[in-house]
């Protein structure tokens, strides 16, 4: 702290020392200043807001409250020349809670939707058996059966359902079904008027993502690879020890109506697994951001670069009803590590992640990059 007009003002050094989430933020901020994703005006805004605090955030939840005062959607705008096909991954439960599956004529199929929710409930309440349990066979079989049941409710044997958009060829084996969203959904952040931001992943033919969405169908933990690849560290920890079951929605975003931006560290993103480093350290920057591949954090020499991502205004679904394609991925491994603000201090995975995103800089270099007026 130093004194400003008689008030004690938090310094960058103190901010750094308070908790590892603050360090993660500062490392990413320095990297994004480097490649011009964070402008000098945005950098100054951050410093001004920091000085206005009574004390530096001491926990992840404190930091989250502080970040709400900073502008989102302030990164460079992405200007594709046509609409972007995108996906958003979420717990299957949240998806089915707010979407209604449709039949071959595109009409809402409420009974089938409710049956799918019921099957999902029975699945999520099952326990994944301990791998040391020699008698785990029946429990595993029960899981597989219940997953088949959920898939069958999405895509019944007797219906010829077509997705609502043309999907990449590599997604041909993905379990997808047409659906409609008829009203606001807070859980999915599909709202008419909100200042929140929404992260989306573009479906690019050349990217590994579409093929992975297909492969989920045959994997034991169908949601795991996609969750890791998209850096969705908030998924995988639930209080009631239920299984986490993931799905996704796919739709076409009309970029003549909705503006898309490369994410910055202030875009209501993960406090523990956001990666602002993509783009040459002192060179040009990519249009999209890149997620941090969670599976690579503790794997020596593995690339952290996951999938493309961008952020948009949360009015994506302002004209109800909205037609979407909903997809089933599958369960997460029950021991899936997820960032959680209840746990204090950095564990091995957190420390390894910080090491990976610091770009070889030490504290003074990072703080110098943020504190000095450089472009």
């Amino acid at each position: 702290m130093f004194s400003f007009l008689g008030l004690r003002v938090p310094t960058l050094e103190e901010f750094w020392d308070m908790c590892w989430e603050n360090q993660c933020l500062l490392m990413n901020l320095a990297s994004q200043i480097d490649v011009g994703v964070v402008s000098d005006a945005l950098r100054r805004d951050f410093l001004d807001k920091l000085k206005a605090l009574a004390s530096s955030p001491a926990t992840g939840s404190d930091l989250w409250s502080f970040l709400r005062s900073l502008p989102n959607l302030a990164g460079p705008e992405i200007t594709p020349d046509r609409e972007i096909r995108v996906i958003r991954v979420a717990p299957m439960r949240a998806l089915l809670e707010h979407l209604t599956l449709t039949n071959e004529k595109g009409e809402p199929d409420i009974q089938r939707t409710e049956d799918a929710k019921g099957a999902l409930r029975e699945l999520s309440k099952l326990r994944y058996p301990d791998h040391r349990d020699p008698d785990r066979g029946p429990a595993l079989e029960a899981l597989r059966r219940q997953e088949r049941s959920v898939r069958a409710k999405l895509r019944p044997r007797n219906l010829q359902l077509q997705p609502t958009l043309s999907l990449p060829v590599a997604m041909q084996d993905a379990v997808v079904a047409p659906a409609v969203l008829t009203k606001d959904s807070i859980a999915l952040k599909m709202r008419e008027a909100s200042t929140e931001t929404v992260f989306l992943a573009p479906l690019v033919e050349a990217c590994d993502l579409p093929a992975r969405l297909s492969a989920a169908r045959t994997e034991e933990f169908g949601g795991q690879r996609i969750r890791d690849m998209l850096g969705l560290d908030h998924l995988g920890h639930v209080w009631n020890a239920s299984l986490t079951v993931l799905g996704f929605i796919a739709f076409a975003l009309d970029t003549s109506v909705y503006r898309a931006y490369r994410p910055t560290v202030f875009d209501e993103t993960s406090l523990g697994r956001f990666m602002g480093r993509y783009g040459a350290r002192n060179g040009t920057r990519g249009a999209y951001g890149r997620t941090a591949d969670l599976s690579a954090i503790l794997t020596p020499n593995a690339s952290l670069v996951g999938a493309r991502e961008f952020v948009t205004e949360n009015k994506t679904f302002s004209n109800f009803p909205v037609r979407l394609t909903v997809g089933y991925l599958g369960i997460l491994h029950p021991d899936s590590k997820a960032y959680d603000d209840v746990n204090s201090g950095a564990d091995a995975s957190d420390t390894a992640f910080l090491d990976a995103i610091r770009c070889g800089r030490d504290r003074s270099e990072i703080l110098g990059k943020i504190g000095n007026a450089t472009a």
Partner: protein
Amino acid sequence: MTALTPTDTLLLDRLAAIVEDRVPSTHRECLSAWTVSAVKRWLMTFDTRSFAPLDGHFLNDREFVHSFLNMVEKNFGHLTLNGAGAKKIVAEALVIVIDDIMREKWVEFRRSASLPTYISLLFELLFLMDPPTGFAAGTRALQWEHVLGRLSFEAGSDTPFPVRLYRVSPAAYPEVGSQPAAFREALMRLCVRNPEAPGVLSMIRALFIPFMRDLAVDTGESQIHPQALFLREAFMTFGSANELAENLNQNWIDEARDQAGDMEGYELSDESIAILNDWARQLSEALTTRTQADHSVQVLAETLDVLGLAIAEVPAAPEMITWLRGTRSMLQEYASEYRRNAA
């Protein structure tokens, strides 16, 4: 009792200053009153800033229930206030909010189309923090038919409220017990009268085996078990009882085919028959673990007689019919034995 740290006291004092209606006199009252006011603010605005100064726990993209529980655990999980654990206090505060809504204190909110969604979220929190309180409040809520009539089966396309409540309740807490049993019975009572509502038939099917296991709970009275009577009422008395039994059994068969991954247009696969047999075994076990020998078994036998006849109409389920006939015989033997002993 856990001693409060200066940080705990400071936080509770900050919360007390936020409570609008009254000045709490104890720390327990403070936590309860703040929870009630914060949850009510959130229900009116759907803005997680309602939980200030603890709104930082509601991280972007994370599910509300998880964030709420994080908030409670991180800030109050270690506290015992005036003899009660913090989770218990927060759970009781949620019940106050639910009761206020049910008792027409919140007339405007009760007209909201979102009410079933948010009430079931509150119940999910209750079930996770304090299951006995959750089951008790859930059973009570299901009996408020003057409210739930609008919430549940007349709401058009929305999920019926009892079905929502079932989905947020624990799968096995405990496997057999009077509170969950009463909850399941209240669910079944509402749902068997509305089997056409979305999701209800699937729920009855999923609930059926746990419901039958509940019959193993000894009521301590030598009278017909109330749930046995209920089953008779459901499957024999109602005008559409046979239809319900038929639909339920078809739902069982459809589910077995879904779980087995059967192809369209083919007969039941060996795997789907094995699944049906597995359910039959579980149901049979649930019934044979009964500790009572009273009139209930006779009533059940009569009920299953109807159920078995209904199944006989479904040619694709021979294994199920065989099983049900066996169970019916077993129950009839129990009933005869009871009559002999009574004589």
